């Protein structure tokens, strides 16, 4: 699909919504905005956007609540989390709730539009910091009997891709650097996202709590 993706922006700060709308102007069709959980649930059901740009922190439950309520009616709805918070607990929580990626609010309009398109197409979007979190959370070896290798471990290739993202390289640059196709890079990231969402690895939650730092 190459058409212009459509989004609904969910954030309780009007200034920020206006800023995102302006930045996305020509690249993405902004169907609507919402500033609370109920408003978001209603707007998403009515406007049926390709992607919901979702703030992590909002009064009345935040982004996680929006995902949970929308999923009941529209399980196929795709979300991209957008936040100033770099708190690992928030990030891990929203990704595990079902967001297909997480980017920080300082991202450029071009990169954000790129992320929206990627999420619409079913791929995952990791910011450098999220990639760092995942590498940290999946670090260390577990006793073999506790590990479901399908979900609880990253492959060497996945690690390498995450490392490149953490270093700030874009998917197409990573493809060049690792001599693989962009499609393969996307497949690796999607596979990491799946592990992040489904792994029972107990380190994940413990790690997120132990690293409760804002930056």
């Amino acid at each position, binding site marked *: 699909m190459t058409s212009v993706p459509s989004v609904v922006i969910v954030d309780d700060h009007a200034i920020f919504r206006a800023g995102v709308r302006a930045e996305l102007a020509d690249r993405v069709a902004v169907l609507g905005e919402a500033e609370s959980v109920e408003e978001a649930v209603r707007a998403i059901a009515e406007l049926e956007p390709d992607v919901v740009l979702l703030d992590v922190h909002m009064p009345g439950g935040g982004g996680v609540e929006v995902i949970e309520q929308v999923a009941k009616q529209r399980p196929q709805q795709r979300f991209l989390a957008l936040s100033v918070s770099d708190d690992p607990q928030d990030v891990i929580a929203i990704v595990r709730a079902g967001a297909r990626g997480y980017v920080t609010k300082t991202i450029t309009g071009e990169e954000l539009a790129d992320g929206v398109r990627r999420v619409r197409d079913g791929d995952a979007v990791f910011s450098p910091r999220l990639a760092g979190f995942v590498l940290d959370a999946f670090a260390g070896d577990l006793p073999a009997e506790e590990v479901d290798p399908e979900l609880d471990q990253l492959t060497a290739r996945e690690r390498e891709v995450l490392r490149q993202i953490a*270093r*700030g390289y874009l998917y197409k640059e990573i493809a060049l650097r690792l001599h693989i196709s962009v499609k393969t890079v996307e497949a690796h990231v999607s596979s990491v996202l799946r592990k992040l969402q489904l792994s029972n690895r107990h380190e994940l939650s413990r790690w997120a709590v132990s690293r409760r730092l*804002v930056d």
Partner: protein
Amino acid sequence: MRRPDSSALGAGISILALGALLLLQDKEVIDFEPGWFLAALTALVGMALASRSLPGAEPAARTAPEREAERLSGAGLLVGVILGAGLFFAWAKGALADAGDVALAALVVTVALGLISAPFWWSMARRLGAERMARVRSQERAEVAAHLHDSVLQTLALMQKRAGDPDEVAKLARRQERELRSWLAGEEPPRPGERLADALEAVAADVEEHHGAQVEAVVVGDAPLDERREALVAASKEALTNAAKFAADGGEVRLYAEIDESGAKVFVDDRGPGFDLDSIPDDRRGVRESIIGRMKRHGGHAKIRSGPDRGTEIELSLPGGRA
């Protein structure tokens, strides 16, 4: 605030007074007909209980401490009744006559008085506690306000004045963001003098502050600082400074570090014009000496990849596990 249940207090005290009078009568200090005491006692207790259930005696809304004080004073009343009855019973049995234990009776009276007046002291203590809490809270609010005023508001004012200089505005905003984040994180301040991860992040912030480039740092894992790791931090700082100076105008510089059992690796990447390592100009001697040389001296090594149009990557590695 209303005195907690004065009727219960009155009933308790009158019962005790009656008990004491009975005792005195028994000791033949004063002379009364015991039947009068019984009648008076019953009447007083009855009055006290009645006044408690009168409509209007119940205040419409009670605060939690008041409700608890009421419960306590109810208990005080009960104890007073039991003690009074006990004293009466003892007197009737004539047990107090030969025991001569005025001391015991006095003790009983004291304890009972304490119990009856407990709600009063208790509510007083609660009131003082609540006042102190309110004071602490308003102090905290004043501190937050003062902090925001000194930091965020000042920075916003400065940004309005410099609105014509986008680089300067971006720099101010980032510095303020960093400062606010670390203030919000609060509980555990970074320890750049002790931990490798904190030291690397501090160096990234420092370079950003002084060289006008955006420096993003992502650090995975951590280890305590020692002499060799300090050298790694110093070499990282040199690499960052170098990248920031030559990065495309206001460009982004990235630091990524991975620290685990097998050692520490630091990557510094920029999208600047790049350069040819073999023809390092004189003003870039820093690269050879402070980066490559320093890493070698401490048992690590540095790899530099650079070329026109592809920016520069510097990879520093230091073998050795967590100390």
